[in-house]
Structure formats: C-alpha cells, structure tokens
C-alpha cells in the first residue's frame, strides 16, 4: 500500500496531461487506490492498523504532491543544495560534474530531470542499482533521517542509498519533493484539493477553508478522510496565507464597476500579519515566517496596547515627523535581528492595519470586507492603532487623481478592494486590484545570458545587465553589472533574443554565456538600492524588461553616474507631511 513508484508514475502522467480537470480526476483515482475497502474480512487490530496506514498514505500523497517533504507549518527543511545533490549523483554515475552534468542541466533546465535521465541512460549505472520497493511512509522516514543529519558524510550516505535503491523516475520526484518547491507538473494545491474533494466526497470550499486554517495539505487530507473537517479551527500564532492583489489591467478598467470597490493607498512597506493574545505578540511576513525579532519596538508597542486577542493584516512602514519615508530607509531594518537602539531610533516604524482576520475569539475571514472593516475601525479606535483610510472612487480618473496624491505622500499606488469580498487567503484574484507604476527606467546592455530553468529550460531567459562606466575613472572596465532580469518580455521577443545572442557569444561558463555588449534593453525597476556586495555598488529592486531597444547602440547605455543621480532623487524625495494623516487614520490615544 502507498507504493512510492506508483505515486511517481501518477505524477508523471499528470504532468503530461493538459486538462486541469483531468489532472484532478487522475489524482482522485490514485487516492482512491490507497483507500481501504472497509468490507475486507479483517478484524480488530489488523483492520485498525491498515486503516491507519491508509490514512497516512493518502495524507502523505497530498503533501508530497503540493507541499514538499515536510508540512509547511513545521518549518522543517533539509539543508541540501541543488549543487550537493548534483555532485553526489554525478559521483554515483561516475561522470564529470563540471563538463558533463552542467551541460545536461543547462539543456533540460532542471537538475532533477538531468539526474534522472543520467541514472536511466548511463550503462555504467545499472550494475550499481539495488532497486527496492519504497512506500510513502518509508520515504517520509528517509526525509526525517535526512533532516536530522548533522554532517555532510551522513547526508551523502543517504543520497547514495537513494540513487542506488530508487528508480530514476522516483529519484526525479524525490528531489523535487525534497526541494519543497513545485513538482513542475502543472498541479497546484487548488487542483489537489479538487482531487481530494472528488475522492472524499467533501465540499471543495470546505477543504479549501480547512487548508487555510491548518496551512497543511497533510492535515487537510487526514481530516477529510477521517470526516473530521469540522474540528479544524483558527488558532492564534499560526499564520494564514495573505490575500493578494492582482494588477489592474487596461482590460479591467473598462469592465470594472467602481461602485462595488473602495480605494486605499498602497503603502510601500513590509506586509505583516500581527497576532496578539495571551500576553503574546507575533509578527509574520508574507512568506509566513515570524519576523518579531526584527521589529522588537513594534512588538513592544503592541504589547503595551494590551489588545484583546486579535489578528490584523497590514503594513509596516518607516514613519518620521509625520512623513512616510521611502522604502530604502525601511530596508535598512530588513533582516536585522535584534536591532540596536541606534537603528531603532534612526528608523522609527508605524504599523498601519487594513484588514482583520480574527476577533472576539473567532475568525472573521468569511465576513464581507465592509463588516470586517467596521470591526477593524472599532478595534483600532479603541486601542489607538493606525488603519488605512478608505476613499470612494467612481471612475478611473478619480483613481488616477488618488494615485498621484498617494505617490506624493510617499506611497506606492492605490489598492481597489471589493466591498463584498471575503478574505481570500492565499489567492490573487480580481477582488483586490493594485494600481502602481515603476519608479524609473534605465537603458542598459546585456552582458551575460543564463540558461532558464523549469518552463524556460533550454532557452536563455535570465540576463545580467550592465551600466556604462566607460568614462568613470573608478573603473577599469567599460560596463559593470547593475542587475539581473528574467521577465517582462514576450515569448516572441525571447526567441529573437536567443537567436541574436548566439552571434554574440564571447565565452561559456556552464549555463552562462558571456556576450559581446550589443543588445540594449530598457529596464524598469521599483527602486535603486545601495548594495556594497556588487561591483557597481548598487542594485535594482524588481528589475524587468520594458522593451528591447533594437534601435539603440551601446553608446546610448546609461552610466553609473545616472544611477547615482536617480538614487539621490529617490532618497531625497520629500514626501508630503501628514500632520493630520490622509493616507491612514491615526486614532487619538487616550
């Protein structure tokens, strides 16, 4: 029961299937094959044991398909990089990692696929194989053992065991599950929940809700099989996925009924979920990691407020002398655990709430935004917590006017939120729409092309871009890298780029090509940051292609001095003072 190879074979078929509905059907059928027929003539302990194993296999199958080697909520990981895996597999296959493996990975765009194909194809591997049947439960204990390894040799021993005892297909998925990332079969957790719903006969919406509450496909599947979905409940200090916003496209604008939406300014800070209760305060970031240690001042501030148990969604911004400071200032506090008094003084913080998830001992995510908002206002008012101001907008012109005002106040743009919407955790749909613009753009030149991975395997899809330092006597070279971009172009542009690149190759370093600097790209970005670890001394936040400028030549490339000028403008950007704040409401503190 719960044979790992059978599981991998189903994943492989799902990967080759185009229809999303059909994918879920296939997985549902597979889950059903793990289920115990309760009419079997088994009695007492035997039956209990078999049912227990079946439940665990079903839960593990769901977890491995969508969540990885460990439940996300455990925070457990295996510290093995893709290079370690590739080196170990190259070792087992007796091939040269640098010469052979790297070329194979470049062409496939996937280390796990390359390893799997090499194990399958190389004639020297066969005599080393000691195939043995793995169950899902055994695979789990293998992951456990791996996470408990304290040194390289122990890990290497387990890896060698995997290469020898699993089939190449199992190895491929084992590596992908281990990486806690996507299995690259076009099968997301939504589809897994659909399959689970089809198999267990439980409502999809209910499964989705339990998945949000538990944050785990394993727990969701387990509860579904045991018919215990009702027992799932919201727990303080277990963060839930954030609701996300989709960008407002031109197409949306014409079809949008503005009267159903309300606008808020979009703050340029750190998204944060605050859990308060039982004398404890915890802050969580968008990836659901606890970030309380980085912001002890904020934690202390919340503790001082002694709020009733509550979960707030909002933004941490840098705020000083009635002004919201540029993100660059706030950034100095990012990732600094237990910051010193000086840094805390230098960059004072403000939390601005804009949603409420839990209040008065129960979750309120299913209430419409208007109702949540009412509760939010009353809580914030009584405890003196800032919260976003809402604006009525009736057409796109009013959105634009608000957008300009928001920018002047140091904010990123505007959010449109549907008044009737529930809190759609972990989803990016049309219910929240964001309006923002890039902070600036630069004309840069392509210096290196990197082979893409996954969907973009086999093409050069990531590019290192250079800024001109030709007349800069701080540098010897003509161009220095200013950033790396891997998006913003169309498939057609990418094909044209790839053709052109082939004529410009100066050198090859594994998956990377050094190119003659000729292709000029107009790059847009969200901000310029000082970054001492780069040669240029600066890096760009979220750089992406705006256009490939076939019409420009390298002499048109912007210079590092241009970058420095833009940064000064950006840092010195004086945001409007909000003595009586407009972007948000700061309740009187009594």
């Amino acid at each position: 029961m719960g044979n790992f190879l059978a599981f991998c074979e189903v994943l492989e078929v799902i990967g080759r299937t185009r229809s999303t509905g059909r994918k879920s059907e296939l997985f549902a059928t597979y889950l059903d094959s793990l289920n115990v027929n309760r009419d079997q003539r088994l009695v007492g302990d035997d039956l209990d044991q078999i049912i227990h194993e079946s439940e665990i296999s079903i839960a593990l199958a769901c977890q491995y398909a969508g969540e990885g080697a460990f439940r996300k909520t455990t925070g457990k990981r295996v510290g093995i990089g893709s290079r370690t895996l590739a080196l170990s597999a190259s070792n087992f296959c007796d091939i040269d990692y640098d010469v052979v493996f790297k070329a194979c990975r470049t062409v496939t765009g996937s280390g796990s696929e390359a390893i799997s194909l090499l194990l399958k194809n190389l004639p020297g591997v066969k005599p080393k194989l000691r195939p043995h049947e793995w169950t899902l439960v055994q695979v789990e204990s293998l992951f456990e053992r791996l996470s408990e390894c304290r040194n390289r040799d122990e890990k290497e021993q387990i890896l060698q065991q995997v290469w020898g005892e699993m089939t190449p297909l199992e190895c491929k998925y084992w590596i992908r599950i281990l990486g806690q990332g996507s299995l690259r079969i076009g099968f997301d957790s939504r589809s897994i929940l659909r399959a689970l719903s089809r198999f267990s006969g439980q409502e999809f919406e209910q499964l989705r809700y339990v998945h949000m509450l538990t944050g785990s496909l394993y727990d969701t599947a387990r509860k579904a099989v045991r018919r215990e979905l009702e027992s799932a409940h919201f727990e303080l200090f277990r963060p839930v996925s954030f609701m996300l916003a989709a960008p407002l496209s031109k197409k949306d604008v014409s079809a949008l009924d503005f009267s159903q939406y309300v606008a808020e300014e979009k703050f340029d800070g750190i998204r944060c979920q605050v859990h308060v209760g039982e004398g404890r305060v915890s802050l969580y970031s968008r990836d659901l990691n606890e970030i309380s240690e980085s912001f002890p001042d904020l934690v202390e501030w919340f503790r001082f407020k002694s709020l009733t148990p509550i979960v707030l969604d909002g933004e941490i911004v840098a705020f000083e002398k009635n002004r919201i400071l540029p993100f660059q200032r706030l950034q100095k506090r990012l990732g600094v655990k237990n910051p010193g008094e000086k840094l805390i003084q230098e960059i004072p913080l403000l939390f601005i709430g804009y949603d409420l998830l839990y209040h008065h001992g129960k979750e309120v995510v299913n209430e419409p935004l208007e109702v949540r908002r009412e509760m939010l206002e009353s809580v914030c008012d009584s405890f003196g917590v800032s919260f976003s101001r809402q604006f009525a907008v009736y057409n796109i012109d009013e959105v634009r006017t608000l957008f300009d005002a928001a920018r002047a106040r140091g904010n990123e743009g505007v959010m449109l939120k549907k008044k009737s919407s529930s809190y759609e955790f972990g989803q990016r749909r049309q219910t929240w729409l964001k309006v923002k613009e890039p902070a600036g753009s630069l004309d840069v030149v392509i210096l290196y092309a990197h082979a893409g991975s996954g969907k973009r395997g086999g093409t050069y899809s990531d590019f290192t871009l250079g800024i001109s330092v030709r007349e800069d006597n701080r540098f010897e070279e003509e161009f220095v890298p200013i950033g790396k971009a891997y998006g913003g172009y169309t498939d057609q542009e990418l094909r044209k780029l790839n053709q052109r690149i082939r004529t410009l190759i100066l050198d090859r370093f594994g998956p990377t090509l050094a190119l003659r600097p000729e292709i000029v790209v107009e790059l847009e970005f969200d901000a310029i940051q000082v970054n001492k670890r780069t040669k240029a001394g600066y890096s760009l936040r979220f750089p992406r292609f705006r256009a490939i400028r076939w019409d420009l030549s390298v002499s048109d490339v912007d210079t590092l001095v241009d970058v420095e000028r833009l940064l000064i403008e950006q840092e010195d950007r004086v945001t409007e003072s909000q003595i009586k704040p407009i972007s948000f409401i700061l309740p009187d503190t009594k």
Partner: protein
Amino acid sequence: MYPFESAGGHGIYLPQLKLSLDNSHREAEWVFISHAHADHLPRDRHSRVIATPFTHQFMRLRGFKGECSELPFRERLSLSKCDVTLFPAGHILGSAMILIESDAGRLLYTGDTKTPPSPVTEGFDLPEEVDELIIEATFGLPIYKWQPIEEIQAAMQKFALQSLQDGYTPLFLGYNLGKAQEILHLLAPLGVDMQIHGAGFPYCEVYQQAGFDLGNVRAYNRATCEGSILVAPSSALGSGFASHVSRIRTAFCSGWALTEARRMQMNLDAAFVLSDHLDFFELLDVCKTLAPKRIHITHTPNPTVVQHFLEKAGHQVSSLEFSPRSEDADG
C-alpha cells in the same frame, strides 16, 4: 590527415581535394550533398553536385536546377584527386555518408545519420575501415537515449486512435521531408485516412515510388481534414493550418521532445521522442565500431561533452566548431 575549412552553414570544405561536404564553398569543384534538408543544400546552383538519386530527386522538388552526378550506394566514383563511395545513412530517404579515399587516407563523413536506421530509408551501413571520421553529434549529451521504435510506434498509434475515438482530430508535428513520411509509415497500419501539409505531399510520392507504405495519405484539404490524422511541420501551427478544427489534439515528434521544458513550452497533448538522428550512445558505438585514428565531431551544440566521452574511450578527437547546430534545428 585532411585539413578542413568551413563551407558555410553545415558545410565542410576539403581544400586539398576541392571537395565540399554539404552546402558549398566558392572554390569547390565538387559538392557532396548528404541529404536534401534545406540546411545542407548548395548555396549556389553552379556547383557540380554528387548525391544519391533520391537526394537529387528531392533537390529538384526543392528547386535545385544545377548539375548533379547521381551516385548510387556502394558504387565508386573517381574524381581528380580522390575516389568516393556512398553508404546509406539511415536519416531520410536518399541520405548518404561519403567515404573519401586518397593519398591522405580514408575519410568518412556521415552527414546526418541514424542507427538503427529510420524505417523509411535504405538502411544504415558502414564501410569496413576508415582512418578519419567526421560524425554529426546533434544529440551530443548522455540525456539523449531513444526508445525502440516499436514502442514509440505503439504509443503514437494509441494516441491517434484514442483521439479519434474521443471525437478529436489528431495532429502530428514533424517536418515535411523525412519525419512526416516516417510518421505516416508508422501510422499506416491503422488504415485511417491521413492528410499531410501541402508542401510535404510531393515528397510522399517519391517515398511511395520507392516502395514505402504511407497508408491512405492525401494532401491537406481544409474542407475535409477534420477527423483524419493530420501531419504538418510545427511552423504550420501559427499559419492557419487546420485552425478551424476546434477539437484537435497535437503531438510533437522529435528528439528534442525528450526534455520536459520543450514539451511544456509547446503546450502539447502528447510528445513522441522520435528522432532521425542517432542518440548519444549510438554515436559512441559507431565510433567504437569504426575505431578510426581520428574523429572530428560536428553539428553539435555540446562539443565538449562528446569530446570528453570519446577521449575517455581512447579516441583522438577534435571538434569542427565552425558548424554548430542550434537546438532549434529539426531533430
């Protein structure tokens, strides 16, 4: 030992013999055309071409108007400075390897080749012994290993029948000369009506004259194509081919279909790893069998890896890097 120069494209020029191997060189007196794929054809019509009768026939269909000495397989032809003999290459109908014998030794140039040979070719056959070998290495990485053709054929037939049964029109993507006829031949036993892209149809007649069964094939007709098995090059997809058929399932047939990324990028219903080149391990085997004093690899995006493996097997190897093959090439 022969010195080499580039003849442009995939071509290699032997200045000593004034002989060009594929494409053409302005100083060449003779040009050997290994097979009739566009990227190997002569650049000008003034060269005196040596090719097999079928290759010549395909070249004529593609608009070649120059002079050609047709040379059947295993017949020796004396040129001014060397003798040449052709051997079947197994790539497409008419495809040939050339054995060149002169004072400089015995040199074999494979052109594009496949072993075991494609079922719609004259086979694959090597000469006894050579001093030097120029071999193509299009699929020059150990990730490339083909399944037996019987397994691929069974899967293709299953896909075609299942699609038809579900009310879908199956469309197989493969280029017009060679791959398309191989697909038709593999599906012929189904006895189902098949239609091929108009530009590929004239080549079918040549295959049929040569005695290959291409089943019930007709030229593509927009009005009647729904419900038949369709065969067309990938390039036809964006240009209106069967664009009115909404219930269609698309399968890609190529060696490049082996990687997940390529399959994903093309948004396919199926992919069959059906190549008309030898795989990496077959390439090593050919080198081992011939055991030449020197091997030159060509037509490869990964010369370093092929060289590495051949050298480990004890061969003397160099790479003719002036004729790389991009991964967009047909395969």
